[in-house]
């Protein structure tokens, strides 16, 4: 009896291990989701699990490097073993992996053309924070700020508005991609800008004297003492045309610099008058400049399509916290016939990354919104053709080594934004981006939330949702002058 059982088990094992018979060779690439065909990936990324959405019921995927390989089997989707993956990437750093997919469709096996994963030895900042929010246009209900370890699939919620009376939470941004310096705005009665400095949390009411409203879009000075903000009166309105959805515009917006040591704001008259809208300010990598977007005021909403933002810069003196008196234009909206927003300077100071739309200041519902990159040394502009998708690409953030950036793209369905990573090589050339890998690749399919404002950091933030709850309810907001 024992022998019979042994025999049956052996046959079953052999059957399970044997490769597929009668395999048809296809010269096409497999239709995998997410699109990981010929992408460049950092050596420290989590496994790129993927699936086939067609009638594929079985898959055998071989991931072959020059020194090692992995074979993964799955039913319509694969889950690459994390340990084997890490070892493989470590061995193949700087080289390319060849991925061969053999799939069973309607009972027949097909072997597709192999594709490549180019493993870059430049690591990416291993933590990513983003806001998970329903893409419900004007309002919110459940909002979380989530931190994901890009090297694994671990994620944790660092702020949840369920614990803060349902208030809105805005973008969580870092100073120098350093997790011990970050901030985000909590709105509502007990709200304020939450400043994390080495894990100590401060709550600041950023509405200083003469400011039209509280701080909105902001960026840390590399020294960490200052932040530059725009303060905006934001109006949401709905389009009527089917291909458009929401338009958000400012009816007033100014720039201020906030000194976190003294809680004092400063500005310049030309950055805070009503003749122009200033927004999305950022410091240069050396902290000597403030880059920002500016558009001459136009009657809104009637002239929304002529609301076009240019890129300007003004000097900044970190010694005394003063802003210069004269601005230079780097990107002229009139000449370029577009409108810029979301400026981000690379930590090495070489590049300025931004989003260009046809008009306005809210590109996430603009299908034409694309990323562009300016070489700050040469003034050359890269239209990042290989990076941009058919829908909105916006809200980007650099990795601390300036070799990677993350951005939110709606390329899949036009509605739900997802974080994509793009490699910039030493010559400044951009490579095909890839979406944040998930343990279960079908996660994106069922998710009804957008990954909003993805930001990279070198470490985990030193606070969690419980800390934010305490600050929200128990801590008085500091006032700024």
């Amino acid at each position: 009896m024992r022998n019979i059982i042994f025999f049956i088990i052996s046959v079953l094992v052999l059957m399970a291990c044997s490769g597929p018979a009668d395999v048809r060779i296809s010269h096409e690439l497999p239709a995998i989701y997410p699109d990981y065909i010929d992408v460049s990936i950092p050596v420290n990324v989590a496994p790129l699990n993927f699936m086939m959405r067609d009638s594929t019921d079985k898959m055998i995927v071989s991931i072959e490097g020059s020194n090692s390989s992995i074979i993964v089997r799955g039913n319509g989707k694969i889950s690459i073993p994390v340990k084997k993956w890490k070892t493989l990437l470590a061995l193949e750093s700087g080289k390319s992996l060849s991925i061969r997919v053999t799939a069973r469709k309607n009972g027949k096996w097909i072997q597709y053309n192999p594709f490549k994963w180019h493993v870059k030895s430049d690591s990416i900042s291993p933590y990513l924070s983003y806001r998970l929010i329903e893409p419900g246009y004007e309002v919110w209900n459940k909002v979380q700020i989530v931190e994901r370890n890009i090297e694994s699939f671990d994620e944790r919620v660092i702020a949840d508005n369920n614990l803060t009376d349902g208030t809105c939470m805005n973008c969580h941004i870092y100073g120098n991609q350093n997790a011990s310096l970050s901030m985000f705005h909590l709105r509502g009665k007990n709200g304020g800008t939450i400043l994390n400095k080495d894990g100590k949390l401060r709550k600041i009411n950023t509405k200083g004297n003469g400011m039209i409203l509280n701080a909105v879009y902001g960026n840390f000075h590399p020294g960490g003492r200052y932040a530059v903000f725009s303060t905006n009166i934001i109006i949401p309105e709905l389009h009527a045309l089917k291909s458009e959805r929401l338009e958000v515009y400012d009816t007033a917006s100014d720039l201020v610099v906030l000194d976190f040591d003294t809680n004092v704001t400063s500005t310049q008259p030309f950055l805070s008058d009503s003749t122009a809208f200033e927004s999305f300010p950022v410091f240069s990598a050396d902290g000597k400049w403030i880059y920002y977007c500016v558009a001459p005021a136009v009657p809104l909403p009637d002239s929304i399509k002529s609301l076009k933002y240019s890129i300007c810069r003004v000097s900044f003196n970190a010694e005394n916290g003063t802003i210069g008196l004269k601005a230079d234009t780097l990107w002229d909206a009139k000449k370029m016939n577009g409108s810029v927003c979301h400026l981000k300077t690379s930590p090495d100071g070489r590049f300025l990354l931004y989003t260009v739309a046809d008009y306005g200041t809210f590109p996430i519902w603009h299908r034409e919104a694309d990323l562009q990159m300016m070489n700050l040394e040469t003034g050359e502009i890269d239209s990042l053709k290989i990076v941009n998708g058919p829908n909105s690409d916006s809200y980007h953030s650099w990795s601390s080594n300036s070799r990677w950036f993350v951005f939110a793209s709606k390329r899949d369905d036009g509605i739900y934004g997802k974080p994509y990573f793009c490699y910039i090589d030493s010559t400044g050339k951009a490579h095909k981006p890839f979406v944040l890998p998930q343990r279960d690749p079908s996660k994106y399919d069922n998710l009804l939330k957008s990954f909003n404002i993805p930001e990279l950091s070198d470490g985990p933030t030193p606070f969690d949702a419980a800390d934010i709850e305490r600050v929200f309810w128990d801590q008085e907001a500091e006032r700024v002058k």
Partner: protein
Amino acid sequence: MAEYEKKIDWILPASLVGISFLFFQFFYPYHLFFKEQIQLFLFSSDYFISYFSKPAWLAGYTGDFLTQFFYLRGGGATVLSFLFLLEWLISSIVIKRISSTTKASVWALLPVIADWILHLEILHSVSVSVGFILVLLLFLIYTFISNRRLSIVSVPIVIFTGYWLAGMTILILPVLIVARDFKQGRFSLLKWIVAIALAVAIPLAFRHHYLLTTLQAYIYPAIQVQSLLLPAAFVFMLAGVFSLKRIELTHSKLFNIAVPPVFIGLLIGGLSVNANFRFEKILSLDSETYFGNTDRVIELSQKYKLKDRQATYFTNMALAKNGVLPEHLLEFYQPSVHGLILPVMPDESWQSIFVSNEVFFLMGDMNLAQHSAMLGNTFSPYHRSSRMIKRLAEINLINGDTAAADKYLQILSKTLFHKKWAKSRQLMNHAAVPNKWLSEKREQIPHTDTLRKSNDQLASLRFLVQQNPGNTIALDYLLCHYLLDKDLKSFKIAYDQYARQIDRPVPKVYGETLLIQLFASKASGEEAAGYSINPQKMKDFIAYTKLYEQTKGDMNALKERFGQSYWFYYHFATIQKK
């Protein structure tokens, strides 16, 4: 009588379960349909895993699994009566385990009655009932531990597991543990303190892990505090079992006679307090709208004669869809313009926001429909609604956003009851030639752009009509908006610009409105004749005017003959702010 006393053990429960089925099936079915519409149950691994992010994962998953059957006619009533039967059965067994009562099956009806009363609420989830059953089952497993030491050690495990699997109903576990020890004559104060302390402390200790507020941690998977009535009723029942033990033994006959009326009284009392039959009627109009039964909506509305903004909203849509809105508008209650379009505002209820997309979808304003449907989904209690996902799929299908439509349709393809619908829409989404319905809906969509505030109803209506004057539904809504707002000047301008080009007899309410406007502007007979208003209508107008003058504007004198005329509305209706 003696026979009755013997059979009371099963007559009462059987009657209760049977009546509950009949009640939910015939008197409260639309609440149950609606419960399914605000849920979305998917057969997928990541959906299953999502339940582990909160306590009571098994209760939540099973409850939502069962709720999907509410989509079927009779499904909701069957599921609930089955759950009530289980609650009764397991409660009876538990009571027998912890007490020496001979009336366990009668006492066990009390939590069933409580749960029935709770299920009258839209927000009382099936997961709470399932959680209650799970906790009782867990306790029954615990009772099999006879070893005293093991029994003590297992208390933390049972309570922790209970919270993990079933959530808030663990609050009854300490009571059950103490009661069982009493029955067995085991007095272990330390164990009891540990049990009580854990039941109180575990939700608090894990609330940050589960990202819940203190209140949510104690009531999860319920979303409203009222759901605590179920464990409370169970504890109250146990108190009854122990405190009335002597009466039960000495006056068994009296007990058998007295209990049924008391329980029936409790049930009737609960039903009268908690059952909202008016809302059931509104939900019937809503669900029939959702199911596309336009004539049924009108029929029900005529029967109910509800003076309710939402009832009017659904009725107006049904009339508009049948092309008879201006013909029958004033036969129904019209709270000024507020029964035409439901605003999406912070002070509106989630349920009102949930249904607000219907009218935009009907009129062809797909962007506003999408906006409302997104918010409907976002603000619905579980933030994932099968109905909203279907609507979002349809909107994107009509807009030609193939990828977005695919996103929603593939979600629906993982459901049990919407996958067939999703499959048919998938075929439409990828068909080379659109079918009749799709072509017609696409014709309604504006082809130029404008910006408007989401609640600027007039701007949206004007734009729709301006874009497509042949969109009679939008045109009727625009004209009815003007006339209900008594803005006759704008009505006349829009009527002249758009409605006169449409080849149809002058609808009743338009004719009446025009007559006022023509009379007020002292229009010539030739001009008036140009509108082709029914001559009888003109005679009626003269009769109305005469009577109005004779009675010096006595509303009561005019009401009988002209109560449904626009002239009456114009004179006597008060414009409400909302």
